[in-house]
């Protein structure tokens, strides 16, 4: 973000609307990761130089000490801080602030521009006109750390003004002086760059943006965000594949029901009047358990669950069928048992009894007796239904009693059958290519060694000719 704000005192303030509409959404977008995501461009910078000119004149007339005594606060530093930087330190609470007030190293790089170049002429001396702005900046930065000297009186107007603007940060109390040094130097260099006629501040801005976006934090964030998005996308795709290949249990359920259907059809063929179902040993033992659980003696406690009651009914049913001198395989008996349990668990009448008696079933004979009776009654109907069920009926049983959507299982089964539901080798190759490209780019960015803008050891080597 290149935040543009006028240096003019009437317009410099960013304001609440800016905070609400732009800044807070931007903070959310950046998730508190601020480095490189903000640059401030102060336009109409001649206004600042004009003010500095007045201050320089007043200080020379009154003497520096006297002038300082009567001019406390309200200078350039306070102006930039209060109107442009302080509003950016505010955050909503939901996200961290990008800028720490007391740590200038987190402040955004600042640049100064003037659209009316003629307004800068008065501040340009021959050195600036010759394009020596780097040398001037170095000289002024040297002077920054020293008390005002006689030399400064002989400086050309523009250089005096720049020094005045930078030195104003000496009285800024919100951050340690040591931490403000890079800010002061930056401001000196930014104004020197502005007063260089061939540069007008744009070379520095261009280099700053270019560095940020090619080897700096913007480049890193750009690549990382895309990699994270790609990872999320792959996760979404994998999750879709998992849903497709998730074992539905459909084959087991349908096989179980078909076998039960065949077994019962054989029985009905021999005994057309159906089965005479009665409680057997399993149900009787469970009643004893309930009696024991009714006893106050903890040592007699024989815990069981409702599911065990259904299993008892199924077990006694198989025993009844077996007593009819039919040859049943053990496997098909087990499958019928499971089918009966599934059907009983979903039976409305059974559910109502369970609702009415609750936990009493496992500790009192009467409610258990009632449950067993209703289960037996329902089992007779279940067996009859299963024996006469066609394929459609069995699908319906699978859906309602096994909670398996056979139609959906059939639908996605075709994808599984085609081998499309696995995370394939070509999928892995595409993901690997992204991983490798990302790692290579990040390694290269790291190798170029970007340093933050307000690092303490800035050194200038370039001329802005």
């Amino acid at each position: 973000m290149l935040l543009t704000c006028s240096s003019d005192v009437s317009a410099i303030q960013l304001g609440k609307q800016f905070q609400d509409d732009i800044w807070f959404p931007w903070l959310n977008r950046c998730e508190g990761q601020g480095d490189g995501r903000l640059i401030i461009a102060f336009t109409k910078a001649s206004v600042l130089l004009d003010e500095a000119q007045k201050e320089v004149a007043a200080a020379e007339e009154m003497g520096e000490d006297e002038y300082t005594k009567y001019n406390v606060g309200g200078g350039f530093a306070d102006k930039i801080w209060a109107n442009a930087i302080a509003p950016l330190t505010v955050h909503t609470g939901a996200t961290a602030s990008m800028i720490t007030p007391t740590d200038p190293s987190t402040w955004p790089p600042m640049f100064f521009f003037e659209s009316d170049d003629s307004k800068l002429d008065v501040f340009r001396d021959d050195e600036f006109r010759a394009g020596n702005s780097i040398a001037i900046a170095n000289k002024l930065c040297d002077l920054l750390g020293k008390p005002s000297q006689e030399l400064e009186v002989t400086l050309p107007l523009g250089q005096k003004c720049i020094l005045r603007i930078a030195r104003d940060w000496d009285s800024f109390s919100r951050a340690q002086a040591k931490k403000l040094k890079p800010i002061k130097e930056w401001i000196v260099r930014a104004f020197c760059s502005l007063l260089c006629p061939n540069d007008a501040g744009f070379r520095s801005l261009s280099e700053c943006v270019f560095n940020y976006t090619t080897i700096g934090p913007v480049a890193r964030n750009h690549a990382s965000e895309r990699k994270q998005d790609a990872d999320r996308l792959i996760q979404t795709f994998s999750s879709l594949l998992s849903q497709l290949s998730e074992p539905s249990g459909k084959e087991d359920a349908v096989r179980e029901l078909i076998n039960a259907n065949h077994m019962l059809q054989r029985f009905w063929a021999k005994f057309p009047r159906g089965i005479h179902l009665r409680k057997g040993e399993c149900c009787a033992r469970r009643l004893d358990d309930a009696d024991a659980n009714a006893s106050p003696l903890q040592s007699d406690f024989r815990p069981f669950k409702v599911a065990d009651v259904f299993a008892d009914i199924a077990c006694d049913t198989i025993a009844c069928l077996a007593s009819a001198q039919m040859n049943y395989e053990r496997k098909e008996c087990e499958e019928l048992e499971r089918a009966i349990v599934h059907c009983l668990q979903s039976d409305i009448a059974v559910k109502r009894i369970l609702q009415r008696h609750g936990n009493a079933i496992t500790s009192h004979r009467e409610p258990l007796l009632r449950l067993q009776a209703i289960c037996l009654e329902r089992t007779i109907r279940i067996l009859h239904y299963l024996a006469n069920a066609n394929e459609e009926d069995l699908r319906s049983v699978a859906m309602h009693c096994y909670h398996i959507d056979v139609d959906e299982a059939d639908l996605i089964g075709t994808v599984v059958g085609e081998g499309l539901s696995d995370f394939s080798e070509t999928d892995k190759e595409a993901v690997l290519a992204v991983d490798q490209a990302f790692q290579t780019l990040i390694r290269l960015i790291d190798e170029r060694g970007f340093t933050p803008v307000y690092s303490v050891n800035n050194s200038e080597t370039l001329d802005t000719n």
Partner: protein
Amino acid sequence: MSINQEIGPVEDVLLRRQELRDSLVKLCKHLLERLRDIDKVLEHSAKQDSRRGKHYETLWKVRIRSCEDRIVQFMRRVEVRPSICTMGKRGQGKTTLLHSWLGKSKSRGGLEEILKLPTGDYDTTAALIRLTEAKKHEPKLDPRFLFVDLISKQELSDVTERPGHLAESFIKLQKQVNDEQVEQNAAYRICRFPVERYEDHKLWLDSNGSDGYHVSRDGSEQFSIAQWTAKQVSIPVELASEKQHGYAAKLLRAVDVIDAPGADSHQAGELPMWKARKTLMCSRQRFEKLM
């Protein structure tokens, strides 16, 4: 990083960045192909049984489309290079700054095209204006056109006083004007709201078929409607040497530059509510489009 630090050639970094982009595009295309294969099998299976068909239509088709949408959206994001966007209140000199920075000047070179961006009126910039490097072989970066995303009928639906709409949500607008009666830079007026004194309402969009629209005195669509509803204008610019194109030559090879509407647009002039809401929408959308 010092203020004037020049970091030297970064071609290797830009090349690797391009490789990452290519690998991401390849991944997206691969995933889309995989989804299409899965969808084909499901659709075929669905046609064979009406109950499966119901499941397909209500569940799996939706899931697959949603996954495809996410991939397509991501692909669009992948295409976007790192961007720098101007931001600030009205009248703070955002567009003027871009003119001075990247526009043509005697001392620094620069792009003549930047100077065609309107400045000087209230709420001058009415959409996100993206300056990007042109690439002749990429249709969406063809330097002959401005690529304009338009607000659809569904967007800002709660604003009652609103302009009309073009049938499309995206148009290609020829930069070059062939009509002698129309000012040469008229196409760039798409970047701002209509201004009466420039007689924008007398301009029309004339369709050139697959070659998009051009601005003319006659046409099928009112140009001012496109001005009212433009939300992003992409301007691919051809870059030459730094000597000729100044800072823009180096910068736009690595990064897109976006000019944005003022952050404090107020309800004024014609369709005031629309103006304010559209500006706010563009402000918000910039965050999705940035970086």
